[in-house]
Structures are given as structure tokens and as C-alpha cells.
């Protein structure tokens, strides 16, 4: 009886580990896609999506106009989308 329990646990751990590994692979792909952007684009992604800053705040930090930032941001996200779905 105990042996069977042990086997089940190992199997479940294996499945969880596989899922975890898949997740990590996906994040690795996303990080790589981001890394393919140029520095300005990466900063834009970081400030807007990861730090949650608004366009006005980003404008203050980078010195670019809000309008310019919006344009660059959408262009960047489209590029990122292309890279990401090439990799995944």
C-alpha cells in the first residue's frame, strides 16, 4: 500500500514539475522577445507595463511628448507581439 502511494506522489510531482518547466519556458521566451527590442523600447515596456506608469509620468521621466510616447508604445507592443509569437 505504501509503495503505491509513493509511486503516485512521484508521478504527480513529475507532472507539476513539467507544468512548472513549461511555464518557465514560456517566460524565457517572453524575456527573449523583450530582449530583442532596442533599449528605448525595452524601457518603455518596463515603465508602462511592468511599473504601471501612465504616459504623462513616462513623459516626465523620458522628456518625450505624451503623443510620441503613445505612438512608440503601440509600435513597440506590436513588435513585441511579432517576436513573441515567432518564438512560442
Amino acid at each position, binding site marked *: 500500500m505504501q509503495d503505491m502511494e509513493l509511486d503516485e506522489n*512521484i508521478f504527480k*510531482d*513529475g507532472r*507539476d*514539475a513539467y507544468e*512548472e*518547466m513549461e*511555464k*518557465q519556458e*514560456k*517566460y*524565457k521566451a*517572453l*524575456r*527573449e522577445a*523583450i*530582449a530583442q527590442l532596442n533599449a528605448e523600447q*525595452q*524601457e518603455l*515596456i*518596463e*515603465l508602462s*507595463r*511592468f*511599473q504601471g506608469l501612465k504616459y504623462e509620468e513616462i513623459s*516626465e*521621466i523620458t522628456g518625450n511628448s505624451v503623443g510620441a510616447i*503613445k505612438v512608440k508604445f*503601440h509600435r513597440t*507592443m*506590436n513588435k*513585441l*507581439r511579432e517576436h*513573441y*509569437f515567432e518564438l512560442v
Partner: protein
Amino acid sequence: MDCIKINNLLIDYIDNNLNIALSKRVKEHIDSCESCKADFNQMVILLKDMDSINDKFPSPEMKEKFMAMLEEEKRNQKVVEMDSREKGFVSLISSGWGQVGIGAAVLIIGFLMGFVFRPGSGSNSVQMLENEINLMKQIMMLSKFEGSSASERIQAVSFIQEQSEPDNELVEALIHTLDNDKNMNVRMAAASALSKYYSNPLAKEALVNALNKQKDPLMQITLINLFVELHDKTAVDGMRRIIIDQNSHDVVKSQAQKGIRALI
């Protein structure tokens, strides 16, 4: 509305930032336009994945599982046989830390076994197990720094952070990362990790130097806040220099002023 305009609205649409009228127009367009629908679907996935990647590393589930396994190993300690511990290490390595192949895992196990089973080492077994795990972590961390992705490097930094006294080699790895890593997230993680080892003169010096070297506003702000928390007056000079520097951003300058006031 043409596809280009719709494309520019997609993200705000997904984030629910559009007013009702605009939302409706976007939805109608997506429903009827195959190519925009495809873009929309991709964008949804991208944004979702970016949100989840934004959570701390390692993922909470992974850390929980590791802790549970550690407890399990401790409980099995009374049966201190080679077999059970080998199995413990192999499952520790293969679940969640993926990068090390089984071949390498066996090598690591062999190395650790050789290190630990020294004749006459009278330390208690739980302590020994913890030392082995720490050693293993350190070995994996060093190898992860050569890994390509930023997330792996951040993981390495956060594992190092859990050591109470990392050896100088690891501190130097952190310093190198702080000064040279291309990814700002990784540099910030390294700064935060180094601040924990402030008593180490190498770490302290590296952080103070970083205040001058890092030009990224976010990095500067992070560092200023760290110094205020650490009550380190030697950073005041660096903060003054930031205020004088014309290229410093206004937000950073005001943060530096607050920092100086807090420290003096």
C-alpha cells in the same frame, strides 16, 4: 474605423480603458475583421503573459514545493542512507529548477557526497543536509549567471540573497551583475541583494560607486532609497553629485534632496 486605428486601441480595449462607445466600435470591428481578431487574440495572450511574468521569482508555488520537500527530507533524516538522500536530491533538482540535466545532477550529487561524508564530521544530520542544500544552490546559482535570460539571472540573484553570509565569490558575482548586466531589472535585483550584505566592505563600496555610475533614473532612485534605509551617510556625496548633474532627471534630483535631508 480602419484597422490601424483599431490596432492602436487594442491594448486599452483589453485593459478596459476605453469608453463604452469606443469599446463597442472596437468589438464590432474585431468581430467582423479576421486579421484584427487574430491580432487581438495574440495581444490578449501577450498581455496576460507579461502580467504573470511580472510576479516575483521564483513563483510562490515553486518555493512552497521546495520548502515542503525540504521538510520531507528533514523528516526522513533518521534513515540516513545513501539511497533516500540520492532520491531526495534528484527530485529536488529535477522539479522546478529544470536547467540542470540529470547527468549534471549526478555529478553534483557525487561532489556533495564526497564533500559531506568526511570521516569524523560530528555535526548533526539536519545541519548537514542544510549545508548540502546550500552548497547545491550555490553551485546552481553560479551556473545560472551564464544563462541567457534575464529571469534566470534574477532567480540567481534572489537565491544568493537567501544566504546569510555568501562568500566573496558570490558577492563579486553580484557586484559584476550590478555594474554590467544589460537588463535594469536584474541590476535592481542585484542592488537589493547587495544591500543585505552591507557589512561586507566590497558590497558597500560597490553600491556607493553605483550611485555615480548608474544613469538610469529608476536605478538612481532605487539606490537612493536603499542608502536612506541603510542610514549610510557616505552616500550623501553621490547624492549631491546627482543634484548638480544637469542630466539628472528632476524626479531623481528631488529624491536625492530628500535622501540627503533624511541622512544628515
